[in-house]
């Protein structure tokens, strides 16, 4: 049987090779071998995606490679999803309504944040991608959310994060929730500019910041 290190190395290789099938296979093998899903996600899939991101930034790789790597990771994450759910037990730290902002269909970053938050003990209401502003509002109200998080991968869609802030204000619930923004073009400056409470640079940062606010 393959060792944990070998399986993690293969998880990385699957994303670096943009290989969906290999990502699914190694994810299943990790589950069968009883390896902690957090280690596979963090040290395998996420580490490889980070590497692809760095090579994209340096001009060595291009947008198709970035999307193909995200796709491979998404395939592996689907296999791991039930195990991620199974790890969530006991009282939840806080309720997080999460989605990719209206007009934007990029979901992998948001999916990773959702998975990591669930693992960390948060209740996550995942609204999916291309989420209309009204849907955020109704989900926040119906679930008495503590956090409303939005992700954007494009400069053309990140402007909708302003609309979300305005809509929460108009609905009279802005004071009851913390807003969190993230995504490739999003920065702390942008978060400050639009009045968002939290800027999360990545999934780990999102967990760390929300734990800092809500964990007792």
């Amino acid at each position, binding site marked *: 049987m393959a060792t944990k290190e070998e399986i993690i190395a293969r998880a990385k290789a699957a994303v670096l090779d943009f290989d969906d099938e290999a990502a699914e296979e190694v994810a299943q093998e990790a589950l069968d071998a009883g390896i902690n899903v957090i280690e596979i996600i963090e040290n395998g899939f996420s580490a490889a995606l980070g590497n692809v991101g760095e090579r994209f930034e340096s001009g*060595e790789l291009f*947008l198709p490679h970035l999307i193909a790597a995200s796709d491979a990771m998404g395939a592996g994450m689907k296999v791991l999803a039930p195990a991620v759910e199974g790890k969530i037990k006991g009282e939840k730290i806080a309720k997080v309504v999460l989605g990719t902002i209206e007009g934007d269909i990029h979901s992998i970053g948001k999916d990773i944040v959702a998975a990591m938050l669930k693992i960390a003990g948060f209740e996550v209401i995942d609204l999916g991608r291309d989420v209309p502003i009204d849907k955020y509002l109704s989900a926040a109200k119906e679930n008495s959310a503590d956090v409303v998080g939005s992700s954007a991968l494009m400069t053309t869609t990140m402007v909708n994060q302003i609309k979300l802030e305005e809509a929460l204000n108009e609905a009279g619930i802005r004071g009851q929730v913390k807003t969190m923004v993230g995504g490739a073009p999003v920065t702390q400056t942008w978060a400050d500019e639009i009045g968002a409470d939290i800027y999360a640079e990545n999934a780990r940062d999102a967990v760390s910041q929300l734990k800092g606010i809500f964990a007792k």
Partner: protein
Amino acid sequence: MATEYMTRMGDGRRVFMTREDILADIEAGVAEGADSAEVPALSEEEIEHLLEIVCAKERIVTVEPGNEIVMSQDGGAISIDSEHTSGVPSGRILATLMYERGFCMDSIDFGHTDYSFKPVKPLISVECQQMRWVQEAVTVPVLYGAMPNMGLYYTPDGPYENPGDLMKAFKIQEARESIEKSADHLTRDIIWIVQKMMKSGGADGINFDTTGAAGDGDFFAALRAVEFLRKEFPEMYIEMGMAGESMLGIHGELEYKGKAVAGLWPHKQVELAAEAGANVFGPAVNTNTTRSFAWNLARAVTIVKEASKVSPIPVHVNMGNGVGGVPMFELPTLDALSRANKAMVELAHVDGI
């Protein structure tokens, strides 16, 4: 109080900077250009020379007699009457004469007002007729000019599905196939148009303007067209001007003669252009509007210098609105433009502009 020099930001805004601040920006621009393009940095002597050019007291600077270079005009001879530039209602043929007799250009590119290959197809007879008239009136070489502009082959403007839309839906393979089909179509169109223009219009050659604007597929299609045309017209004059400094990898894995097209910087782009059969290469280095003119020019000179050094064909650098260190402004200011031109001649050793 330290003396301050009037200079520009990358958007053309006038700013006053000390010599020390200008030097710091030049050094930072050189370092950034060398790092991004992976080319050698300028020497201390070259940086000092660039500093003298930027800090010159004169409003307009130029080269010493004997160091003049060739000037090849592009833009389809529409820059004179375009409302975005001069706004002089002249028409194309009159504008071409102005370029030759007023501005002393050594070669001129003549093109359709849309300035892309694709829309020329239904107008080819008119374009050939106009080219014949121009050839009768003008002495210097007149090239037919157009942009490959492969974006016109994607929906909603063309027959092939937009790779941007396909990639958003994670359809990478389909996106790449769409790019490949568009590139094949574009290559065919360019060849057909240039054949007509050479045989019926009597053009001296062809100027590919803003090559690569739609990414690596755009460059790939143009290179194949150049290769074909060079074989059919061994004596024709082919100029290949670029759209930007780094070839954007929309496809990411296209290869021309075994070399990956995406991610190439000017000193690598020129190798492929020459191999395909171009006579002249026009590198383009983009201007950053939030940085100073000194930073932008230092960066552009660093990148273009290496392209000039390695190129087996003449290099005519693109200098103007937002390229070559020149501020991004429809009618660039003479103080910045003349300094940028002088620096490109004396430090980047270009053959033409």
